[in-house]
């Protein structure tokens, strides 16, 4: 196999893995989906417009995340309950409101990662793509095949869902 493709695969592996990990909070699933995306990239490498490579890769990753979430819907519901308890326990353990800012930040990060998993699609994917992965609105529009204004509205809605999930917990 050509070296340039290996470089391409290496370029996208962390991006896809990060997206799937923050979407599903499951490393095994993130590995499987990343591998699947790279194989699909190989199969369709000659058909993809190089200018639209990132949106293409992220669209495939997003579809795979949707499928994985659908397959594990029952399990996700159970996990989400556990997550809620987890967050609450950690916040209690964090102690008084005067806790050091870095500790609060760590708490917020943990709580945020868990809260992300409870946000519905496509809001979660848009939040991860825009805020975590710094994708442009144009790339997200292309990846999810939804209009620009909808992306912006959904992004704000996703952030608000996160605030609701986090309110009173951090």
């Amino acid at each position: 196999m050509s070296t340039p493709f290996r470089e391409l695969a290496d370029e996208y592996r962390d991006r896809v893995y990060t997206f799937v990990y923050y979407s599903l909070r499951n490393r095994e699933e993130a590995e499987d989906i990343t591998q699947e995306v790279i194989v699909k990239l190989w199969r369709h490498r000659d058909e993809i417009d190089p200018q639209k490579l990132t949106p293409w890769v992220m669209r495939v990753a997003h579809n795979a995340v949707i499928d994985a979430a659908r397959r594990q819907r029952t399990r996700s519901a159970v996990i989400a309950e556990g997550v809620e308890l987890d967050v609450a326990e950690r916040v209690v353990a964090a102690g008084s409101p005067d806790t050091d800012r870095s500790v609060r930040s760590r708490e917020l990060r943990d709580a945020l990662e868990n809260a992300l998993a409870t946000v519905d699609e496509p809001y979660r994917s848009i939040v991860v793509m825009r805020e975590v992965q710094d994708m442009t609105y144009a790339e997200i529009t292309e990846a999810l095949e939804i209009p620009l204004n909808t992306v912006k509205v959904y992004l704000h809605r996703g952030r608000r869902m996160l605030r609701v999930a986090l309110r009173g917990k951090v």
Partner: protein
Amino acid sequence: MSKIDDKCSWFQDRIDLYIDQELDRADNDAFERHVETCAACKEELSLAADVVSELRSLPTQRCPERVVDEAMQRASGETPQHPIRRVLGWLGGRPVLTMRPAMAAMILVVLAASVFVLTRHEQSPFNGNAGQQSVAEHSDKELELAKLDAMLAFAYLGRYSRRTVEIVREDVITNRVVRPLGKTIVEPMNPFPLDE
């Protein structure tokens, strides 16, 4: 709903626009004036800013290199459009045999056939002293080279046979049978005991 609540609701709907600097100047100024005097909106803005800030600083997760290695291995198996792969397409597009072991096997067959014919020719009782002639036709060096070729072909065959067995074991049995079967068994085991 009170007038103040309406006002707060209006501002809280615009918190994300404010953070993204998408409010026009008039709304932006009004928003800032309101937040200065409203503790609830100030707190909400603080949480919103923290959330965005933390989201933007979430670390990139490192994907293990073996994931790409395995993907490359799978992908490289799909590259050649040789007939063996097409014939074995029912195995899910994974090549169990590659072109090289097939070629090694073909070379071996040709060499074995040559040696067999040569040996029969030399030892045939119907040839009289033809055997002596035949030996004379092939020098020791040529025979030695033929022997080396045959040994090389055997070595290739052995090597690629082992590789084929590895592929069958790792790629086909482990990845296509054991892992999916494991997932099928393990996945339903988690939710159902809790649901019941």
